[in-house]
């Protein structure tokens, strides 16, 4: 009897280990396929857009002989599948290639552009989620009242007003007129000479070096674009929070909680929001991922040397190494944040945990 139970348990453990292995295996398989698909699609787009990549290297003035030689050097005369194969095998060795436009290794370029975007996106998401969730909850609790109406207008405004216009107006008011914030760019030029980037997250770098002057200057440049991005994600997050909350507040367990005589604050924050948080995590994670991709318009208006500008500029010049490198980074961010929100799901929602 005990033997049987032991064997049964051992079998169960082995089965669960196997299941875990199989899950990990299939996850890896999906991951590889996702990347391959991502690269194949981007690669093909890069080859069918009617832009000659050689132009970016040699310019419009080069004699035909130079154009032909560079085309040969770049391997653009080979069949497209062969070019793709060469590219993939290079990637597998961890080499993203050189950017045609900047003549730097793509990895080096991304290492420089990405922290700028990350700083902006993180600040934006903190503002967006930090204010968006409470405001969404508030609107749900006061459904149909003036608070809700005001939030609806605020949300609509955030959705529909072009961000470059908001950015310019913000600069005009807070930078040009009121002098509250720093202007376009990541910092004043004076600091270009004194601050040495280590991680590229300049706020972190300046804090670690104890350069608090530079830190304050960086912050003054960051606050406006971050608030702007934060506002746009706030508009989205608060609307989603409201609808998740309304859904929860109409559930029977809320009625039960009210009948038990729990305080309204406890019902809203501990019971309803906790359940609404589960889908909300995905919403916030995806909106963060969207910001990490780089926001071209914001980066243009604020002269912010981020990933969005880098990839767009590369695409307009058919600089495919840079575009593909950027795509891998953006793809990895999405995959990573999706994984993270999956993990958070499991912590927040006991039903999704595996026994």
């Amino acid at each position, binding site marked *: 009897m005990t033997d049987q139970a032991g064997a049964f348990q051992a079998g169960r453990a082995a089965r669960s280990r196997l299941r875990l292995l199989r899950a990990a295996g299939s996850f890896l398989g999906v991951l590889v396929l996702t990347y391959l698909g991502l690269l194949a699609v981007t690669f093909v787009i890069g080859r069918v857009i009617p832009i000659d990549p050689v132009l970016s290297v040699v310019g419009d003035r080069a*004699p*035909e002989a130079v154009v032909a030689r560079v085309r040969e050097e770049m391997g653009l005369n080979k069949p497209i599948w062969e070019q793709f194969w060469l590219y993939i095998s290079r990637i597998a060795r961890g080499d993203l290639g050189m950017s045609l436009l900047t003549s730097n290794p793509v990895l080096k370029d991304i290492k420089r552009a990405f922290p700028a975007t990350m700083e902006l996106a993180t600040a934006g998401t903190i503002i967006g989620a930090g204010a968006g969730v409470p405001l969404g909850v508030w609107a749900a609790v006061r459904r149909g009242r003036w608070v809700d109406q005001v939030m609806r207008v605020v949300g609509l405004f955030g959705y529909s007003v072009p961000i470059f216009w908001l950015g310019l107006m913000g600069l005009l008011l807070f930078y040009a007129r009121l002098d509250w914030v720093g202007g376009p760019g990541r910092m004043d030029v004076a600091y270009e000479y004194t601050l040495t980037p280590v991680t590229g997250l300049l706020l972190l770098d300046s804090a670690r070096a104890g350069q608090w002057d530079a830190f304050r200057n960086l912050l003054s440049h960051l606050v406006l674009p971050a608030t702007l991005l934060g506002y746009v994600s706030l508009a989205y997050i608060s609307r989603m929070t409201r609808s998740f909350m309304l859904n929860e507040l109409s559930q029977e367990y809320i009625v039960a909680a009210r009948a038990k005589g729990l305080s309204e*604050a406890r019902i809203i924050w501990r019971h309803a929001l906790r359940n609404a948080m589960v889908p909300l995590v995905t919403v916030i994670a995806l909106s963060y991922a969207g910001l990490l991709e780089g926001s071209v318009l914001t980066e243009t208006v604020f002269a912010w040397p981020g990933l969005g500008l880098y990839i767009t500029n590369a695409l307009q010049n058919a600089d495919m190494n840079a575009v593909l490198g950027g795509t891998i980074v953006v793809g990895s961010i999405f995959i990573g944040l999706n994984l993270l929100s999956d993990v958070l799901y499991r912590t927040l929602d006991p039903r999704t945990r595996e026994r």
Partner: protein
Amino acid sequence: MANSSHQVIGCLLGGTALALVLGLGALPLAAATPKDTLVIADKLDSSITMDPAEVFEGTSAEVMGDIYDRLVRFSEKDPSRPVNDLAKSWSVSPDGRTYSFELKPGIKFASGNPVTAEDVAWSLQRAIILDKSPAFILSQFGFTKDNVAQMIKATGPLSLTMTTDKNYAPSFVINCLTANVACVVDKKLVLAHEDKGDLGYGWLKTNYAGSGPLKLREWRTNEVIMLERNDNYYGRKSLLGRVIFRHVNESATQRLLLEKGDIDVALGLAPQDLDAVAKEPALKTTATPLGSVFYIGLNQKNPQLAKPEVREAMKWLVDYSAMEATIMNHIGVVQQNFLPNGLLGSSNVNPYKLDVAKAKALLAKAGYPNGFKVTMDVRSSQPYQGIAEAFQQTARRAGVDIEILPGDGKQVLTKYRARKHDILVYNWDVDYWDPHTNADTFARNPDNSDTAKSKPLAWRNAWDIPEMTRKADAAVLERDAKKRAAMYKDIQNDFRKTSPFIMLFQTIGVAAVRGNVDGFKLGPSTGSTYLFNVSKH
């Protein structure tokens, strides 16, 4: 009960707002730029290299005039006249093929190495051997990878000779030697960074080895170009200690930065922002006609556009003066010839104006009394779009129905280079400060076949002109400058009437500058905006 949630949220919001206000209040106010530093906002995204043998476009080409010296450079006072730079003197042999240069003694590179004739000869040889885009400016004198070591050589520590394959006009040769591709690099320093026989190409792309009044300190692509004073410079030292170019793409952003004093110079302002800047007492603008022209090309592969009457009719369907007053306000003047003003042989004869009746008569003669339909490729940016839309309006009045095909810059260019367009609006910048640069592309087409070796603008519009090609070839060999100028005028007289190019405007370069900046002047050609003359008070 509802109140308690209200309070919680109220606290949260209040806290956030308070934190924001406190945070903002503690921030420093914007400061003016340091006095020995000039900060310039520009679009830096077309700068792809800092190697003089490769640099051709964008801000990196512009700064070459400040950071490198050459045998001859354009005069600071008259930036279309070449004067000696590293050369003390030069002479041409009686057969017109050998140029001898003597160098000024005692000049040092920024590295401290002396500037020798060997550095000069090697720099020119290097440009030919590397054979990057601008190499043709030198190789058109018959230099090849194999013969350049014999054709250009040092004959002493401070003397060198250069032998060309034909007896070209000396003005043409000397003008070409002012180009960036003829910059002198520090042979010893560059070769110290050579990798697998690349003549230092990989290193010099992002580094510096020159002797100019300023030196390159750092270049971060699409972000910043930083220059600083070269204390080893042989001439008058730069008044500025530092020059910083910042990448600011958006015109409105540049204007805000300028008005606030966070930058000293804005180089990319759109006409409406220039209007606003002109009204600000603390700012001023400075304008220079550039070696750049706007034109509309009519592809002769299109049978309708190939008729001479149609070509001429189109020239009468453009409202030049209206465009000049609106879209091109501040940034262009009417120029109906292929040579921009300031170049040898340029012309100010501008006979065309909007005349719909005349155009209609010509179209009727060509067999299109009711006009025809045609497409036009246009870069989706200003002023190209504005020019295209204005032309579309006026052409419609004669029945010519133009469909505009907007595209990204490189996309339109790719189509143009394959000559698959009908009509196209574009611009052309001179490659070097000599009339041959534009005659070579607008008025020469040695081979109009699809597989031609050279594909100038005349080829791109499939304009087959053996007679005009011969005339342009003769002009480049004419050693008498006056006669040479007359030859270009003659070619342009013919060109105005018969060409498939509707020449529109000469570009005006405009910079908006803060009032405390002295001596900032845009040069007409690439690399002649001399920042070492600028100071701030």
